[in-house]
Each structure stands twice: as structure tokens, then as C-alpha cells.
């Protein structure tokens, strides 16, 4: 043991010596490096200052750094062993945020040590718009973080690992245009800028904007965010709501402020994360809405396509033809769109169409389609022509009125008309037929049809009673029968009660002995052959049963046995009956006392 200790001390000594010698020989070095010479304005540059051979250096000042903002600093030390010589390194890592685009300069860092002046080389960094960071599985786009996220990658860069102590959450509202024509689509986005982790966002305002027809985009289950640099701070930005607004009135129309309630994860690293609620509101936005040109008043605004088709080229005169009219909106409000109509002629009759309007929410726009199915019946046979239909709209981008025309088409109608057309729509004046009247009043017995049994207390009580009965049945089966009746105490009591009940029903002396034998068999575990006067006396004496009780018990049992073999001797006559009742009464009392003694 002593030998082992000596070896350990020797090794430690040699190690320390080696380190000391290594330091003694070390040269001082001061170097700088950057991780990239071209970055985007949204990226972060890593600038590292490395000291070699300086013990515990103080942090160098970067006061000359004007075109970058330091967002985070970290310090690390390390020992390197090369060919048996150790070197001590200290690294200062700066995360720099570019403040503008162009070619930016990082000036030399200066450090004084033991009277010596050390200086690093300067760097030139090209800063472009956006981000040039390689998008490895979209590192900047993140799903809305949740408290349950186990996403280490989210905290990959050190400045994200430390959440700001203060709450830094903002809401912004953006519109695609501040000046619009009446009916022109405007995209409205609500952006959440946050440096805190957010668990949930709920809109608490009524999302109703007077003066606008609104189409809100559906809220997706998870929201993608991206990192953005705002005044040197990195925010995660989430688009939390989006709508397309169609102004319905002219002048200055204001999009009101919308309030949102958010739940922040205050301490994301604690085992028991704490949540905190905050409320933020979007700013109001005023849109200058001007009316459409005079000639375009009342026309839909946007960009549309238009078509009309018939489902058949040839039709029997008794059949119904369906014309399909489609207006597809690449941009524009399909909900308020009025479809052009065919007019009934002497050759055909047009019925009210079935109209469906489907809206598609695309990534950055709203499109949709209006479909009309127009039933047509024919009055005459032959080649019947349908005229071209016209659909006009105003294109706000080109500021022109666009007229779309469907192609005229013809349908070959054949056959013989079976019956005259019955009008589906009747003029108001012809509606009430002469003499048509409502049916006469109803007579007979009436009662309150809305007096329902199930609402009466009797119904409820009966149901409750039966429910309780069911419950009792279940309790009996599953609790009482299984557990309580199996308990020793209850078994014992049950045994005695059974015996006493049987004794109470005895009509002849001969019935007593088998009851007592069964009792002894169950109570003391005696076999039938073991039950005799001697064994009974011995058993009861053991449990200190009163001697007189033992004697009476044995006497009555013996008499009962005797009467079994000579039934004429006992149980006959009125006097005998009275004696039997008295004896049974006495036996019951004795048995109760014996039962309490014998274990």
C-alpha cells in the first residue's frame, strides 16, 4: 500500500513538473479569426480572439468595432499537449451582428501584456441582404416552440440559449398595400416578434373589421417561425394570423387594433417551468380606399377567368340540360360575386341555378371558384343556340375593365314534348288561387303535449330507486358475497344463527341431536365418529364452559339420541310438547354461552 502511494505521488510530481516546464518555455501569442468572410445581414459572425501563453488574460476591448454589434461573448480555456510540451490557450468568442450591408471591417484587437503590445490582424467581411447560412434542414425556420419541445437545435447558438430576463414580445401588423380600390384584395398579416419562448397565443378581440369583407386564413396546427434581426437583436418571428381584406367603403378605413393573450414559458430550463400570461395588441392601420373608376362601378375587382359548358350536346325535349358556369378567381372576392344569367326564351326555360363557392387559401393569396349549375328545359325541338355570356371585372393591377365572353353553343333537341311546362315560379298576384283557403280549425280533446314524463319528479325518483337497487345488487355480489361473508367473524355468527334457527324449528326431540352434532362438527372440527359425551365434556372444559351448561348440553343431546331410537318415549302428549319447548329455550341460551367461550 505504501508502495502504491509512493508511485502515485511520484507520478503527480512528474506531471506537475512537466506542466511547469511547459509553461516556462511557452511563447505569448495573440490571434484573431472569423468563421466566414461573407455573411447575410440576418446571420451572426463568430469572431474569436485566442491567447496563448497568457495566464488568465482579461477580456480584450472591442471599442473600435463600429459596424457590428456584440450580441454575446463567451470565454474558454484549454491545455494542448504537443510533443510533450503543454500550451495554455484562452479563447474569447464574440458573436457579432452586422449593422448594415456592404463590406464591413473588423479593426485589429489590441492587447498589452507585461509591457508588450500585441495586435491582431484586421478582417473585411462582406455583408449581403438576408442570410447566406447553409439551410441545413432550415435551421432558421422553426416550428412554434412548445414547453414540451425536446429540441436542442433550437438553442444551437449561445445567444438563444440564454433567454432575456425581461419580456421582449411585440406584435406587428402588415398590409400588402396602404392605398387600395374598393373591393381590391389586401393581405393583412399579424406577426409576432419574440425573444421569449411562447407556449400559446390566443386572439381575444373580435376579429371583425368594419368597412371590410374579411376572409381569414385557417390557423395551422403549428406555426413556422424565422429569425430576424431588429436593431441588433435577434427575434423569432411568427405569422400568427393572416386575412385577405376587401374594402367595402371608400375613404380612410381603419383596421382596428387586435388584442392577443400569450402564455410565455418564463423559465424554460427549470424542471418545473413557469408560465406567464401577457397581452399584446397590434397597431391600428389606416387604408386609403378610393372608389372604382366611374365606368367600373359595381364590377367585381380582381383577376378572374370565366367559362360556360353544357353537359350534353344532344338532349331529349323532355330532359333537363345542365349548364355549368365557372368563374375562377386568381385574385378577388368570390363570396360577393354575382354570376351572369341566361334569359328564358321561347325555345328554352332557365331555372334558378345551384351555386357553390369554394375558397382556396394558398401560401400568400386567396383564390376560389364559383360554380353554378343551371337547369334548362326545352320548349321546342331542333338546333337551339345559347348566346355568349359576358362577365366583366375590374383589374386593379392594370387599372382596366376586362370583359370575358363565353363561347356561344348549340344543343340539338329532339323528341316530342309530353306535357306542358309547369311554372316553378309564379307571379305574386297569381299565388293565392281563387277560393283557396287554409284548412279549418281542429276540434276534439286537447292536453298538454309538452308535459313530459321524464321531467316529472316521480320519473326521476323511480329511476334513482332502480339505479340504487342495481347498485345494491352489485354491492351484494361483488362486495358482500365476496368479502364480508367470507370473514371469520361473520362465518362464526352465521354458524350460530343457523344452528339457533334450526333449533327454533325443532318439533321433536330426535331432531336436536343431528343439529348439535353438525354444530360441533363445524365449530370444533370434530368428525362425526369423534363426537361423544366424553369428547364434548373435554372440549367444553378446555374452554372453561360452565359445568352445569356442559351437563345440560350432554343430557339434552343424549335424550335426543335416545328418542331417535324409541320415538314413542318422547315428543308425545301435551306435557311433552311443553317440556320440549322449555328444553329448547334452555338449550339455545346454553348454546349462546358455549359459542362465546369456544374458539
Amino acid at each position, binding site marked *: 500500500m505504501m508502495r502504491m502511494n509512493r508511485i502515485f505521488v511520484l507520478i503527480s510530481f512528474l506531471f506537475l513538473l512537466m506542466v511547469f516546464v511547459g509553461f516556462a518555455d511557452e511563447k505569448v501569442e495573440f490571434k484573431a479569426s472569423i468563421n466566414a468572410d461573407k455573411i447575410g445581414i440576418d446571420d451572426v459572425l463568430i469572431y474569436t480572439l485566442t491567447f496563448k501563453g497568457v495566464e488568465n488574460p482579461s477580456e480584450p476591448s472591442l471599442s473600435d468595432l463600429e459596424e457590428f454589434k456584440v450580441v454575446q461573448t463567451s470565454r474558454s480555456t484549454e491545455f494542448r499537449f504537443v510533443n510533450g510540451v503543454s500550451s495554455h490557450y484562452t479563447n474569447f468568442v464574440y458573436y457579432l451582428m452586422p449593422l448594415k450591408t456592404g463590406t464591413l471591417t473588423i479593426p485589429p484587437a489590441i492587447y498589452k501584456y507585461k509591457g508588450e503590445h500585441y495586435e491582431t490582424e484586421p478582417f473585411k467581411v462582406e455583408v449581403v441582404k438576408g442570410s447566406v447560412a447553409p439551410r441545413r434542414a432550415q435551421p432558421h425556420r422553426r416550428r412554434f416552440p412548445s414547453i414540451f419541445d425536446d429540441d436542442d437545435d433550437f438553442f444551437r447558438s449561445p445567444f438563444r440559449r440564454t433567454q432575456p430576463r425581461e419580456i421582449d414580445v411585440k406584435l406587428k401588423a402588415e398590409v400588402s398595400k396602404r392605398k387600395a380600390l374598393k373591393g381590391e384584395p389586401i393581405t393583412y398579416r399579424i406577426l409576432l416578434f419574440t425573444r421569449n419562448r411562447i407556449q400559446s397565443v390566443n386572439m381575444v378581440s373580435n376579429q371583425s373589421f368594419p368597412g371590410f369583407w374579411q376572409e381569414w386564413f385557417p390557423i395551422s396546427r403549428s406555426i413556422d417561425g424565422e429569425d430576424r434581426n431588429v436593431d441588433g437583436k435577434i427575434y423569432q418571428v411568427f405569422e400568427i394570423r393572416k386575412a385577405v381584406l376587401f374594402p367595402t367603403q371608400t375613404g380612410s378605413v381603419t383596421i382596428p387594433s387586435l388584442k392577443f393573450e400569450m402564455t410565455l414559458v418564463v423559465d424554460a430550463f427549470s424542471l418545473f417551468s413557469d408560465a406567464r400570461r401577457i397581452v399584446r395588441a397590434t397597431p391600428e392601420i389606416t387604408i386609403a380606399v378610393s372608389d372604382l373608376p366611374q365606368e367600373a362601378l359595381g364590377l367585381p375587382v380582381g383577376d378572374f377567368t370565366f367559362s360556360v359548358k353544357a353537359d350534353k350536346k344532344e338532349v331529349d325535349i323532355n330532359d333537363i340540360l345542365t349548364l355549368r358556369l365557372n368563374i375562377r378567381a386568381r385574385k378577388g372576392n368570390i363570396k360577393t360575386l354575382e354570376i351572369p344569367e341566361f334569359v328564358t326564351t321561347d325555345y328554352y326555360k332557365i331555372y334558378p341555378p345551384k351555386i357553390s363557392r369554394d375558397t382556396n387559401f394558398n401560401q400568400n393569396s386567396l383564390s376560389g371558384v364559383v360554380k353554378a349549375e343551371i337547369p334548362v328545359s326545352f320548349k321546342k325541338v331542333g338546333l337551339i343556340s345559347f348566346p355568349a355570356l359576358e362577365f366583366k371585372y375590374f383589374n386593379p393591377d392594370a387599372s382596366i375593365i376586362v370583359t370575358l365572353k363565353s363561347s356561344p353553343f348549340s344543343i340539338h333537341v329532339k323528341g316530342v314534348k309530353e306535357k306542358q311546362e309547369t311554372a316553378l315560379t309564379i307571379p305574386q298576384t297569381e299565388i293565392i288561387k281563387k277560393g283557396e283557403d287554409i284548412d279549418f280549425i281542429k276540434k276534439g280533446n286537447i292536453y*298538454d*303535449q309538452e308535459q313530459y314524463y321524464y321531467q316529472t319528479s316521480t320519473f326521476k325518483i323511480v329511476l334513482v330507486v332502480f339505479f340504487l337497487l342495481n347498485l345494491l345488487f352489485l354491492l351484494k355480489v361483488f362486495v358482500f358475497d365476496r368479502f364480508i361473508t367470507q370473514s371469520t367473524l361473520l362465518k362464526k355468527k352465521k354458524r350460530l344463527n343457523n344452528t339457533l334457527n334450526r333449533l327454533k324449528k325443532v318439533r321433536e326431540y330426535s331432531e336436536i341431536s343431528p343439529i348439535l352434532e353438525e354444530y360441533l362438527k363445524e365449530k370444533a372440527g370434530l368428525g362425526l365418529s369423534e363426537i361423544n359425551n366424553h369428547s364434548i365434556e373435554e372440549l367444553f372444559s378446555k374452554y372453561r364452559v360452565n359445568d352445569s351448561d356442559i351437563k345440560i348440553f350432554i343430557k339434552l343431546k343424549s335424550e335426543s339420541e335416545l328418542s331417535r331410537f324409541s320415538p314413542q318415549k318422547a315428543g308425545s302428549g301435551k306435557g311433552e310438547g311443553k317440556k320440549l319447548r322449555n328444553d329448547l329455550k334452555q338449550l339455545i341460551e346454553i348454546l349462546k354461552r358455549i359459542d362465546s367461550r369456544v374458539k
Partner: protein
Amino acid sequence: MRKRLPLLPVLLVFFITVTVSSIQLSPDSFQEPFNQANQLYEEGKYSEALSIYLDIEKKGAHWKLFYNIGNCYYKLNNFVRAKIYYLRAERLKPFEPSIQKNIEIVNKRFNDKIPGEKLDFLSRVALRIESFISLNIVSAVFLVSVIILNVFIFVLLKRGKSRFILYGVSFSLVITLLIFGYHMYRTGKQNLRNTAVIVKEDTNLRSGPGENNTILFKVNPGLKVKIIDQSRNWLQVSASSQVAGWMEQDSLERI
């Protein structure tokens, strides 16, 4: 051996008797005024008849009463209220031809010609069943099924397992559960009164709850609508698959 009267069957019989006697509808005091109002109607005294009918309505509801009230309103040229009462009568007695006919006639008095949504096959079948089997009958059948189930369970406990008893318990349990489900459906439907008639002139259907929302449609009194949603005193209603929107609560009357 003297046999004791089993306690539970006696209790069951007692409960059945009490229940049936208590839930039987007693003839109400409004039969006489109803006859009197009918007499007045036949004499052409519609206002007087209406006044009595409306008094009876405070005490109870019957489809004949609603139907006659509708007739009075129709004769007094109040077609909106006539339609409301015809629809109330229809709720209590679906598929009654007289009610259907009068609704058809009164509908011709209104400007809005929006065809109502047609019922699908299953809904029609369900409604037919409802018109034949009243909720009270369903309640009574449900109660009887519960009692039968209890009797079977009791016999099972008393006499032990036998094939007949086990089949009886299983069958009555399934039947009771099915009737219970149907009873829940009917009571739920009873409590959900989501049909209404527009009563206010120039009612606007808006894109959202609130005066600030865009007007989508203008509807006239007498239009039957279905209530879909509610936000404070605003209701979202639909008259057809094409006509829907939000309106103020006091613009309509529930059926």
C-alpha cells in the same frame, strides 16, 4: 313450510303502479275554453277566439291549439304569426296534412322564396318515427325496460344462474341501453329548439356578430331559419345552403 312474500317483487309492482298513475295525463282544465274558442272561431269572431286560445297556451301546448291560433292569425291577416304557430303545431305533429297545407298557403304571402333544405332519407324516417311514438311513450317504455332488467337481476341473485335468466338479463340490458340512447336523443332534440321565424322588417344578415359587419342579405319577416350559433345577443342563422349570416336575437322568434 310457510312461504314469505318476496319483498322486491312487491316493491316493483308498487313502483310501477305509482309511476303509471302519476305520469298519466290528467284531463286539463283547458278543454272547456278550447271548445268555447272553437265556437267563436266558427262564428267568425277571430279576435275573441284568439284571445282565449292564447290564454290556454299559457297553461299548456297542443298541436291543435297552435294550429287554431295560426288560423286565427291568418284570418286576421297576421301571416308572420300565423306561420310561427303553424310551425309550432308542426313541431308537435310532424307530417300532419292540414298543417302542411296551411304552411304552404301562408308561405305564399311572403316575399322571400328561399326553398328550405330538404331532409335526407334517414332524417325523414326518424321524424316519421317521432310522429308515431311520442316522447312520453319512449319514457314509459324506458322505465318499464329498467324495471324488467331489475327483476331479471333480482331473480338471478335469488335463484342463481340459469340459461333463461342469463338470456333475460343480457337481452333486457341491451334493450334498456338502446331505449336509453333513443330517449337521450329525443330529450336532447326536445330541448334544442333551433328553428325560428324572422319577425322584424328589413332584417339584415351580416358576415359576423355585430353592427359593424358587412350586410350579406336582407331578409323579410316570415322566413324560416335554422339557428346555428350564438354570440351574445347575435345569432348565426341559415335559411338555405346559400343564405346564412348573423342577425340580432330580437329579429326572430323561436318555434
